[in-house]
Each structure stands twice: as structure tokens, then as C-alpha cells.
């Protein structure tokens, strides 16, 4: 039977012969990912399961990123639990600040996710791995504890929604705008029970960083996961990070899709998600003038080198508006170092940005940039739920690094195109 990318990838990892949507299957993933928030609970459960060993320690990746460097005693002990679990069970892939970064960006960088791989992560944004023609699925701590102990998990094979990308994006339109166009179309739950499969001629115009940004927000449409077609771009990315790379997985002709969606990249303009939903998406122009207190450029989706370059291109020779705080968080240590070498951090700092360590930080309202009551932020993050970045009465708009940087300069939401026109004038 003709198969989608997700069905093909799952079939390679399943104990059962028939992997078609709706079937219950047992999947042995290539990578298990846990962080300092999901890990400690998983370790408690692992112990309660009376597990004596981790099935495949070489497949396990532990990342201290949410509260790292630790923000208080509770998080310091959570970070220590990761350290102890790694040494007790022989897990070499354990990353702390200074050597790591935010898990999903870091995992890709490590080259551990090949075309056709399966990642099970105790974090909802594990779907980010989909950009690499792989399947990343989020779970909770108990599931990951069971996966640590047994090497596999059951799941119901998802359906697939096909998203065809056409055209090439206009100026100041980037992966984030494509991600927001997807949540605009599918809403918060249009992807429930499905994998979003991205392909089509438009894909060639999107670099890996942009694809990660799109894949990252699949869960914001309720999707189980996301799978990009593999191509030269993904193969080239993997070639610099792995010794050998599997062939790209493509869907079969005649594969069954629950529904199909087509996105013309050339028709997109810069988009923004209004609080309190990542699916409440409008053109940036339609909320122009909204005053901002904080701009946050970072997170697992949009703290990439591409984002930092975009932000720097806007902020070069400009200043952050008085009364606005600009926080920039390179997603990994490697990105931080490259940005330093390229002079991007100097441009951003000169403009008045504070450069934060590679942590989840304020993205989930943890630390390093919490919002007070009544404050408004523009963030390149993926969620703007009520209270997500701090006080329940704060407001977060989600947008690209271009749009975020433009808001930092203007002190209010503006289209990045308008800002650069003003400068030229």
C-alpha cells in the first residue's frame, strides 16, 4: 500500500508488520530526549518501575535547558538529577550550559537525527526534528521512563495532512511566517491525530533554520509530529554533522492523506500571532502601532543563526527604543560562538540588547525575562498562551526575528519593511 513519509518512517521502527494510520504499533526510536523539567520526574518513575538499566544509553540525550543555569535551589537539584542519572546509567550525551543549548536546536546540531529517524522526547517541541525528514514526537515523563526502561513505546499510527509549499517568499517573509500561516489555517486543533507532511517546490527556498522554525510549531496546530521531505538542503546539513546519511524519505504516489493544504510562499506577508493563541494569526500591519515593553529573540524555534542575522540586519546602526528591553538568546552555544565570530552579537549589544545564555529562560515563563502585569512582548517563541511568559495579565505576540527586531527599534509593532523604508528615506 502507498505510504506517507510518517508511515514509512514508523514502519522502519515498528515491531508490527502493518503500519498504517489508525493501527496501534510499538516503536523503537533512535533517540530519547529529556530535559531538566521532564527528566527528574521520568527518573522517579523509572525507579518506581524497578528498572535496573537503560535499554540503550547511547540513544539517550539529556539536556539541562529549561532552568539552566539553575535559577533557584529546586532547579539546581533538578539539574543535579540529570547529572547523576547520566553518570549512573552511562549516558554520554548529557549537556549543560556552556556545552549545550536548547534541546531541539542542540539535538539537530549534534547530528544524531538522520533522514528517516524517530525521536521520542519528553517535550512537546520534539516535533522540531521533523525538519530533518525525521519524526519527532513529544511525550510526558512516564512515557519516557518506560521508553528508557524498555527501548520502545506504543502509539496509534497517525494520519497525515499534506502541506504543499509553492512559490518563493518575498522580502521579510521567513520560516516563522510560514509556521504562523500553518496555525492560521489549521487552528489550534486541526492537526490532532495527524502528522504534517511538508513538501513541494517551495521547499527549495527554505533553509534548514527556517524549516526547523516551521516544524517546531506543528504541535501548535495540535499535530502529533511533522515530516519534511528530505532533499539536498537537508542532506547537506546532515553531511556536515554525520559520517553517513540515510537516503531522504519521500511519500509514495497515491499515499492516503486526511487532507491537503497548499501554501503559496510568494503570497505571504510578515505575520504575527496575537495573544493568547498561536493560531490567532494576522498580518503584522493589522496590529501595527501596538506598544511593546519587551522583545525576546530566542527559543528552540527561532534562536537560530538565521534569526540572529535577521535581527542584526535590522538593528545594525540603530538603537533599541527607550523603555524597551531587548533580550537575545542564541539557541545553542555553537550558535552563540558563530554569532560572535560573525560580529552579530556586537551589533545587537551595541543596539542595546542583552545577550542571554542559551536557555529556555523566559520562553516558558521560567526566568531571565519574565513579564509583569500589563506588559506586552513581541517574541520569536512558539506559544503566547495566557501567562506563558509571566503574569497572567501580560501579553505576547509571536513573530519572526525581523518583525521582533523592528518592534524593538520602533517601540511598537511595525512591519519590518516599513522600518527599513524609513531608514532608506
Amino acid at each position, binding site marked *: 500500500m502507498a505510504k506517507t513519509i510518517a508511515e514509512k518512517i514508523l514502519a522502519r521502527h515498528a*515491531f508490527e508488520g502493518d503500519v498504517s494510520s489508525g493501527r*496501534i504499533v*510499538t516503536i*523503537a526510536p533512535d533517540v530519547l530526549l529529556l530535559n*531538566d*523539567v*521532564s527528566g*527528574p*520526574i521520568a527518573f*522517579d*518513575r523509572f525507579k*518506581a*518501575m*524497578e*528498572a535496573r*538499566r537503560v*535499554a*540503550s544509553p547511547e*540513544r539517550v540525550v539529556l539536556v539541562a535547558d*529549561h*532552568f539552566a543555569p539553575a*535559577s*533557584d535551589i*529546586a*532547579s539546581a537539584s533538578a539539574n543535579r538529577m540529570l547529572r547523576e542519572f547520566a553518570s549512573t546509567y552511562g549516558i554520554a550525551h548529557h549537556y549543560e550550559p556552556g556545552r549545550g543549548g536548547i534541546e531541539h536546536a542542540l539535538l539537530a546540531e549534534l547530528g544524531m537525527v538522520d533522514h528517516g529517524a524517530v525521536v521520542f522526547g519528553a*517535550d*512537546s517541541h520534539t516535533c522540531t526534528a521533523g525538519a530533518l525528514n525525521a519524526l519527532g514526537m*513529544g*511525550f*510526558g*515523563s*512516564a*512515557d519516557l*521512563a*518506560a*521508553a528508557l*526502561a*524498555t*527501548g*520502545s*513505546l*506504543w502509539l*496509534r499510527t497517525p494520519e497525515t495532512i499534506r502541506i504543499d509549499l509553492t512559490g518563493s517568499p518575498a522580502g521579510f517573509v521567513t520560516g516563522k511566517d510560514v509556521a504562523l500561516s500553518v496555525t492560521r489555517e489549521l487552528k*489550534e*486543533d486541526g492537526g*490532532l491525530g495527524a502528522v504534517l507532511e511538508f513538501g513541494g517546490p517551495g521547499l527549495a527556498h527554505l533553509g534548514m533554520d527556517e524549516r526547523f522554525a516551521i516544524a517546531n510549531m506543528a*504541535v501548535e496546530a*495540535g499535530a*502529533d509530529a511533522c515530516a519534511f521531505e528530505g532533499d539536498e538542503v537537508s542532506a547537506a546539513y546532515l553531511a556536515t554533522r554525520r559520517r553517513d546519511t540515510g537516503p531522504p524519505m519521500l511519500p509514495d504516489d497515491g499515499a492516503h492523506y486526511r487532507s491537503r493544504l497548499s501554501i503559496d510562499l510568494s503570497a505571504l506577508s510578515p505575520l504575527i500571532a496575537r495573544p493568547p*493563541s498561536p493560531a490567532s494569526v494576522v498580518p503584522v500591519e493589522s496590529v501595527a502601532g501596538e506598544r511593546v515593553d519587551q522583545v525576546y529573540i530566542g527559543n528552540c524555534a527561532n534562536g537560530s543563526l538565521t534569526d540572529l542575522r535577521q535581527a542584526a540586519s535590522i538593528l545594525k546602526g540603530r538603537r533599541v527604543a527607550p523603555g524597551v528591553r531587548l533580550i537575545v538568546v542564541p539557541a545553542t552555544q555553537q550558535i552563540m560562538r558563530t554569532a560572535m565570530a560573525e560580529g552579530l552579537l556586537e551589533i545587537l549589544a551595541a543596539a542595546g540588547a542583552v545577550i542571554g545564555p542559551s536557555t529556555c529562560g523566559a520562553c*516558558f*515563563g*521560567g526566568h531571565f525575562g*519574565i513579564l509583569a502585569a500589563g506588559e506586552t512582548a513581541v517574541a520569536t517563541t512558539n*506559544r503566547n*498562551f*495566557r*501567562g*506563558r511568559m509571566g503574569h*497572567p495579565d501580560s501579553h505576547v505576540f509571536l513573530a519572526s526575528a525581523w518583525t521582533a527586531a523592528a518592534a524593538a527599534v520602533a517601540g511598537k509593532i511595525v512591519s519590518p519593511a516599513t522600518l527599513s523604508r524609513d531608514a532608506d528615506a
Partner: protein
Amino acid sequence: MIPIDADHIGRVYRVGDHVDTDAILPGRYLALRDPEELGRHCFEALDPQFCTRVKAGDILVAGRNFGCGSSREHAPIALLAAGIRAVIAASAARIFYRNAINLGLPVLISPNASAQMKAGEPATIRLGAGLIRQGDASWRADPLDGEVAAILAAGGLVERTRRRLANHDTRGTAHG
């Protein structure tokens, strides 16, 4: 955990559509692991009185896409600690659904029950049969997947996995 083949009676507490796990348990508490402490912060922005209003055994009735967003297991831990013993929803986010089931917090999917059940009044759940009743009305929830039923029957994923490991029933260790 509520019984599988006997009635569970609890009062209904209602919430709306797309209630995310940040609303159930805000991110700033994620370094905590003590259930009681987490329970005190359950729904604190939505309803600051939630944990005093809810009595052990209560049933949470939600709209569409309940538990969307973050994978934090802290969310069902907090709900359980606050006293919620079952969730009825029109639909639920996959990760939350699994997390809840894994902890022995059953989630019943029934758009009609979700739309029609009344807040503040008692309702009866017969989990095994997927039967929900309130006053004169009754609804049948979607049947549970075999694996979900097995996890609930064991009292949660920890116990189910513990038994599998004890019986060397770990067909997932192909790579181990």
C-alpha cells in the same frame, strides 16, 4: 484511581476549549515535583479558588483540545492532587491524554457530554463501559484503545511497566 467496572460519582467542574497545560500548571512551577505543592497551583490564573472549590473525586468537563501545549506531566499531577479523578472532553491533546492515562487519570472523549453536562452537579462514570450519566441524561464516550485500557487496568503506566519488566516482557529492547 476510579474503579473500572463500578460507578464513580463526582461533581462536575467545567472549563472551555483549548485549555493549555500552562493554564493548568504555569511554567514557573516546573522545577517542583511534590504533587501537593503542584496541586495548590492548579488553574491558579483561571480560578484562584480552584483548589479549594474542587473536592476529591470531582470530574473535570472540558471542551475541545484539552491540555494542548506543553508536555509537562506536572499538569495531570496537579489535577490529581487538586482532587480531579476523571476528565471528560470533546477532544484532548495527544500528549496530555497519554500523560493523564499514564497516571491513572482517565480521559473520556465525548463531544456531546462535553457540550451538555452541567457544572456543579454530580455525574456518574462507568469507566469500563464508557458510560457517563448526569440527571436523566446519559452519553457514551469513545471506546478506549486496548493499550489505554490495559494501562488503566494496571493503575497506571508505572505499575504496568513494572510488571512487564518483572516478567521480562520487554519486546522493545531490540537495540539494548
